């Protein structure tokens, strides 16, 4: 496919990992691959921390009475869980890690357009994280990750200002990543790499970047106004001065709904790559998948009002937002059908990444379909702010986004580190995660329809059974993640040249160089003459 060839195998190959040594060589690097690794480590730390809060939440909810911790503490648990998982895990989960690593390679570039800005974005992320951790140390915050006014501005007894500033700052990290991607994809593609020869992962990240640069500033300024209102008692949203708390909700969800697409689009891209590779087949409906990514990003911006159906926005606005929400569902449906179609008459290999991808398709389908419940105004009035919503977005965010991210990690792991993980264990992890996830969150749909509200510390006893089932499922889920993460980390102990450059027989550009790649990615800038997915039999290598 390309003129670039892998360097001849040597005993100690030169890679981006051993090109320089020492802490300084990492902290001052401008290599997108090293920055991706830095991001990976920090995202993992926040994921474990956020997961810890999830464990505490499920422990508390295992019994109806609020007997494990006080309600104030519980409120801080779910707030920290939400803040960490949304802003510090899901948003950067794929773009800043896998995207950062793969996008330049997939477009045949030596680096992102602005390497120093890329490093800066990681530092901003770390500083933002430190703000949130500081607020956690000081005693946490109890507003929920949504920071609704006037609770957050006047009534909360948590550290809203520190947390708000943390999220404000983290926004810039996200913006800079998105900006870097767009410029790179527009201006750094290798010769011959037309838009429709790009891997679909690139399309997905491009669409994501659009959302990042257009939406993030709005939430940044909104949270900044909250900080000002709380700190200086200047009323922007305060009803006491004639302000409108619903305006805050509009401004907040203008970003925070599209943010859902920041979280789900890149994993969708990863799943597309995985399904294609392990079917040895070009994705069915390439152009439809590509354009559906952009359509999701664009339409995703005009549906936020479905979070406000009972918030006293106008009935007319409610109906407009409802119908638009259904429109944005269509591109997602197209993707699901196209993934399924790709497997038709294919040559399917059920390796670990493929298991994750298939799990993703199933769970995302459920998540997407339950979204249809919530987009229906009359149905939403009953379901909003209940566990149905909690279950829905966990199906999309955990069953979808995290599942896709983990799949992507297992898929590109040999590319990034040149090591292969244990097959049996990693498959066991994938299966445990799938079943544990369903045990945890499916009961919550039923609880939601029964009327169990979100963010409840204690609940009526008739819901005890479903809740304890959910808590039990969470244990399995946690075990699954522990195995998955363990598998990857243990593989790092193996010698580096253990695996082939392209163990999966993938066809996209990033696999055309050695694994792990050199600092420059490509010895010679590749010249692309074919579409991204052109499979031929000699490239398939069996995994031991």
């Amino acid at each position, binding site marked *: 496919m390309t003129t670039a060839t892998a360097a001849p195998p040597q005993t100690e190959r030169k890679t981006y990992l051993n090109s320089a040594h020492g802490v300084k060589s990492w902290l001052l690097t401008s290599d997108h691959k090293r920055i991706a690794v830095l991001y990976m480590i920090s995202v993992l730390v926040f994921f474990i921390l956020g997961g810890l809060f999830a464990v505490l939440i499920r422990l508390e909810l295992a019994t109806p009475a609020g007997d494990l911790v006080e309600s104030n503490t519980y409120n801080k648990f779910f707030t920290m869980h939400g803040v960490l998982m949304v802003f510090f895990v899901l948003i950067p989960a794929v773009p800043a890690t896998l995207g950062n690593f793969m996008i330049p390679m997939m477009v045949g570039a030596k680096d992102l357009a602005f390497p120093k800005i890329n490093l800066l974005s990681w530092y901003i992320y770390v500083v933002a994280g430190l703000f949130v951790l500081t607020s956690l140390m000081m005693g946490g915050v109890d507003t929920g990750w949504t920071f609704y006014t006037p609770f957050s501005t006047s009534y909360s007894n948590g550290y809203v200002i520190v947390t708000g500033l943390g999220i404000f700052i983290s926004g810039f990290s996200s913006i800079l990543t998105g900006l870097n991607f767009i410029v790179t994809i527009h201006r*750094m593609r290798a010769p011959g790499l037309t838009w429709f020869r790009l891997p679909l992962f690139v399309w997905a990240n491009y669409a994501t970047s659009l959302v990042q640069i257009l939406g993030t500033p709005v939430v940044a300024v909104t949270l900044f106004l909250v900080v000002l209102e709380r700190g200086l008692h200047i009323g*922007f949203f305060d009803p006491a001065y004639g302000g409108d708390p619903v305006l805050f909700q509009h*401004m907040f969800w203008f970003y925070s709904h599209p943010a859902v697409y920041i979280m789900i689009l890149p994993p969708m891209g990863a799943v597309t790559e995985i399904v294609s590779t392990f079917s040895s087949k070009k994705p069915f409906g390439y152009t439809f998948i590509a354009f559906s990514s952009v359509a999701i990003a664009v339409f995703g911006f005009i549906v936020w009002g479905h979070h406000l159906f009972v918030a006293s926005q106008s009935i007319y606005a409610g109906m407009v937002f409802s119908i638009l929400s259904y429109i944005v569902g269509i591109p997602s449906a197209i993707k699901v059908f196209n993934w399924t179609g790709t497997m038709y008459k294919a040559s399917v290999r059920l390796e670990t990444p493929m298991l994750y991808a298939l799990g993703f398709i199933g769970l995302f389908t459920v998540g997407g379909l339950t979204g249809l419940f919530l987009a229906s105004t009359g149905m939403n009035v009953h379901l909003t702010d209940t566990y149905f919503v909690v279950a829905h977005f966990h199906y999309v965010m955990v069953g979808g986004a995290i599942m896709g991210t983990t799949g992507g990690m297992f898929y590109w792991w040999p590319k990034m580190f040149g090591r292969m993980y244990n097959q049996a264990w990693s498959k066991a992890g994938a299966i445990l995660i799938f079943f544990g996830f369903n045990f945890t969150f499916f009961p919550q749909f039923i609880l939601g329809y029964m009327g169990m509200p979100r963010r409840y510390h204690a609940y009526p006893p008739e819901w005890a059974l479903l809740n304890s089932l959910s808590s039990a499922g969470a244990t399995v889920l946690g075990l699954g993640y522990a195995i998955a993460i363990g598998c990857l980390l243990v593989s790092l102990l193996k010698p580096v040249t253990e695996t082939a450059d392209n163990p999966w027989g993938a066809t996209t550009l990033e696999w055309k160089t050695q694994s792990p790649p050199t600092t420059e990615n490509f010895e010679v800038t590749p010249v692309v003459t074919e579409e991204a997915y052109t499979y031929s039999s000699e490239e398939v290598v069996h995994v031991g």
Partner: protein
Amino acid sequence: MASQAPVFQVRHHFENAEQQKDASTVGMWLFLVTEIMFFGGLFLAYFVYRQWYPEAFASASGKTNLLIGAFNTTVLICSSLTMALAVHYAQLGKKNLIVLFLILTLLLGGAFLGVKAYEYHDKWVHHEVPGANFECEGCVDPGHTSLFFALYFGMTGLHATHMIVGAVILLYLIWQAKKGAYTAKWFTPVEMFGLYWHFVDIVWIFLFPLLYLIDRTKTGFGI
């Protein structure tokens, strides 16, 4: 291969100078788009509340000084011109003129900020800063005027913050320009900063009518 100017080299991951400059321009414009959305949140709040409380906004707007506002707008437009000229002479590679016009831009920006500080002080003295001591003397619907001033300070404050950041960057650019870092072949920082400075000017072009000109038929120029 890119030109081997003494101070300028194409960074390793770019193919040539043109691609590098192109990337910078696209990146800068994308950044400005995020800035549009950043200010957009405040503009939204402004439009909503003005729609609801037109009387309060009109009378509170009358508390601003139109003459000073128009004067400051003029100052800012002048600084935009000098910035455009700085870029112009950068294109021609005239080092001394680059430095001269960058310094003029900095001075005019400083003048703008000085006037702004005076206005803030004036508001402070008259208890027109939202908060515990806030009052809007002689205003119609005073209960809702606090929102106007909250937005006034929010919007002009954010704008002034951008000006201050701009001034710091200007200092750096002047220092670099004096060293002769910018030539006709490479002056990307000057050009990119120009875009930023003009953008800040555009924001003010909208802030001026929205904050100072709501209803001057009663108050006129004097205050």
